């Protein structure tokens, strides 16, 4: 080697290179990253010693005792799976059985698209992973496209498409004054987007607002998409959780399918099967024909391989065990309805409590909105007061996770909200 150590020392100005002890860190300039706004809430909550504390931050379901729930159907599936044959690698596209069952949920039990094998689908790392895979795929195969994202949306949507290097634009969605849908502005934005734009839609139970288009509004949106030849990408993280009926919650998707759109869907079992930490989901893309579906699936796998090679097997096995067994599937549907019903009753209860306290504001939106979250309309400052004075934890955009509310804390919560908003 021509380069002597001494020369190297002089050139890079370090005292001793072989021991590397006096070398400074490569990472001196690394800034501390801001805390994730959503997951950071739970961290803060856990650190709070107050006995009154309430976590209505992250969207994870709690029972009426405020405890996380493992569904009975899941426990039974796990009992059957434990001691399974082996833990071999799944194919890059994941569990075929799990994907098949998952597509039925989204596209319909007897979907012609499934029969005709027109859907390119792969198991994904829950909803996040499905969105990310699609974003990477969009970048690679529609490199000039952008993604239109509703305002507001789940914060991580922005991170996902940004990291995939797909430029973002937004479209109007939430109407703060009515705490409902800004339908006219939404349609305007969709109309003004260039033909063939990629648009992200929340299939049901919009996160964070809980505001969904009505069936009629969905039909109009679908029609406009047809006129503009837009690509609809559905993020469906709450199927079953919104109304308690998975078929009903898939209505928006079914409307688009009837209208002939070739859509993409990100599905998650985090909430509706309570499989949060197992990271189970599915990305699907409806294609013109089987040949194209095969091609698209192969390319999705090419994106998955350098990210994680193949998806985790355990959660997928739980899903396919449940959905593949008629009795377990029935049990699951029952349990999903119980969760959805509890949330619906907490909405009614929170609204009732606030109205009883004589709040000057309207809280109708609490029962009009749907799904895990309620966009309360509170300001960041009011949220900060809730946290500081009442030990109530939620994201600063005023989003309340209804699943964190119980008969035990709804009164306390209503009182606190009333106190910080009554002079608003």
């Amino acid at each position, binding site marked *: *080697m021509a380069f002597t*150590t001494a020369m190297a020392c002089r*050139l890079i100005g370090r005292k001793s290179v*072989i*021991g*590397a002890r006096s*070398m400074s*860190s*490569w*990472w001196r300039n*690394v800034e*501390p*990253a801001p805390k994730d706004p959503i*997951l950071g809430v739970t*961290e803060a909550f856990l650190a709070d010693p107050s006995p009154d504390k309430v976590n209505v931050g*992250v969207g994870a379901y709690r029972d009426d005792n405020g405890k996380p*729930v493992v569904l009975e159907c*899941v426990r039974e599936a*796990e*009992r059957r799976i*434990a*001691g399974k*044959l*082996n833990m*071999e*690698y799944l*194919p890059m596209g994941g569990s075929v059985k799990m994907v098949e069952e998952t597509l039925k949920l989204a596209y319909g039990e007897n979907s012609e698209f499934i029969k005709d094998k027109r859907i390119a689908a792969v198991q994904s*790392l829950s909803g*996040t992973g499905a969105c990310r895979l699609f974003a990477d795929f969009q970048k690679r*195969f*529609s490199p000039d496209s952008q993604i239109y994202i509703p305002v507001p949306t789940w914060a*991580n949507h922005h*991170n996902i498409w940004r*990291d995939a290097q797909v430029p973002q634009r937004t479209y109007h969605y939430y109407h703060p004054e009515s705490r409902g849908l800004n339908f006219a502005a939404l349609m305007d934005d969709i109309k003004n987007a260039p033909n*063939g734009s990629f648009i992200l839609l929340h299939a049901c139970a919009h996160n964070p607002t809980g505001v969904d288009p009505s069936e009629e509004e969905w039909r109009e949106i679908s029609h406009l998409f*047809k006129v503009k*030849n837009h690509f609809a990408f559905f993020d469906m993280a709450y199927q079953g959780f919104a109304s308690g009926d998975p078929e009903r919650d898939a209505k928006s998707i079914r409307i688009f399918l009837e*209208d*002939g759109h*070739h859509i993409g869907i990100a599905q998650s079992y985090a909430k509706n099967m309570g499989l*949060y*930490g*197992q*990271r189970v989901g599915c990305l699907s893309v409806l294609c*013109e024909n089987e040949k194209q579906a095969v*091609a*698209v699936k*192969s*390319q999705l*796998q*090419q994106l998955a*391989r*350098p*990210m*994680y*090679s*193949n998806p*985790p*097997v355990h*959660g997928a096995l739980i899903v396919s065990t449940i959905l593949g067994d008629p009795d377990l599937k029935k049990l699951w549907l029952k349990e999903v309805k119980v969760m959805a019903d509890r949330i619906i009753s907490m909405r009614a209860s929170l609204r009732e409590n606030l109205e009883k306290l004589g709040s000057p504001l309207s809280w109708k939106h609490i029962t009009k909105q749907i799904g895990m979250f309620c966009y309360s309309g509170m300001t960041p400052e009011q949220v900060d007061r809730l946290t500081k004075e009442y030990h109530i934890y939620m994201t600063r955009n005023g989003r309340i996770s209804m699943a964190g509310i119980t008969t035990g804390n709804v009164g306390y919560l209503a009182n606190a909200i009333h106190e910080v908003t009554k002079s608003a």
Partner: protein
Amino acid sequence: MDSDSVFGNVVRAPEDPILGVTVAYNKDTSPNKLNLGVGAYRTEEGKPLVLNVVRRAEQMLVNDLSRVKEYLPIVGLAEFNKLSAKLILGAESPAIQEKRVTTVQCLSGTGSLRVGGEFLSRHYHQLTIFIPSPTWGNHPKVFTLAGLSVKTYRYYDPATRGLDFHGLLEDLGAATEGSIVLLHACAHNPTGVDPTPDQWEQIRQLIRSKALLPFFDSAYQGFASGSLDADAQSVRMFVADGGECLIAQSYAKNMGLYGERVGALSIVCKTADVASRVESQLKLVIRPMYSNPPIHGASIVATILKDRDMYNEWTIELKAMADRIITMRQQLFDALSARGTPGDWSHIIKQIGMFTFTGLNSKQVAFMTKDYHIYMTSDGRISMAGLSSKTVPHLADAIHAAVARFG
């Protein structure tokens, strides 16, 4: 009305060369077929293996009704992270005691490499990574998609079927200062050729003198020699000099957790403060990729690593797997010697770990697949874990015939 698909221009991607071997194998109806493609351990009976200690851990988890399935933190299961760092660095490692190591749970080795690569492409000043030639087929794709520019350094010498040490030193010596260098911690994939401890020391000195950044891929700790500590020596040597490095760990092979996707990325930093800031930035890479890692496999690993008896049981089962592979190497070598197959086949017993780089060319490999139903990657790599005493003769026959046919 069915509008034209916006993805109508998408062409079908080629099969992954490694995973595609298993696809082809599965299609073959011959009773003599042999899968020596993907590096997944098989027993003497040719069956996949779930370690007893893993089954026990799983049962414990299932029976523990207090367990829930909540989201893990973005960085994964804390206990798992601590134990993983100890496993690779040593329980007494000063780097750990000084809190200079950040460890995040990732999706097996692949996920750890990808997250590490993404972090480097955002925060490091020299975006070139040198990977050995040859290396695991997925390495270039992982780092390219992570945003790094990939170059190679000489590693394997076909003439000796061993390490091209001189070429390695030359190529790393010529690298731009600060470049990243991918090192296989042990049991190099696909060649099975590892540097000796002396050679590792020289590599370390060179890397530190050029201020190159080492990125270890540790996918076979315990699998190579049968000893977890011995197989971690290369990594520990680098960490002992006080310098920084990245380490990707996988539990796919050594705990047989393949499909559970369990691994960890550790970044050894100069100070605790730096490590903490680095960890916060790792979260920003992970969150838009999959939010947080899967809980099941990491829980199994943590259960085993933190219990002395289970840990010991694991080391015994691990050694048994490593020993069986070493036995297969010997048997294959003996079988080729017995057949008088032309050439020097001693590399089969000199190489280490799951794979042997046979030196067979793609023509010979294709012949072996067609005529003997032997499935392996076209670079001549065979997974020793896929062999048994019963199947060694068939493979030896195939190699013998291929060498005779295509010289």
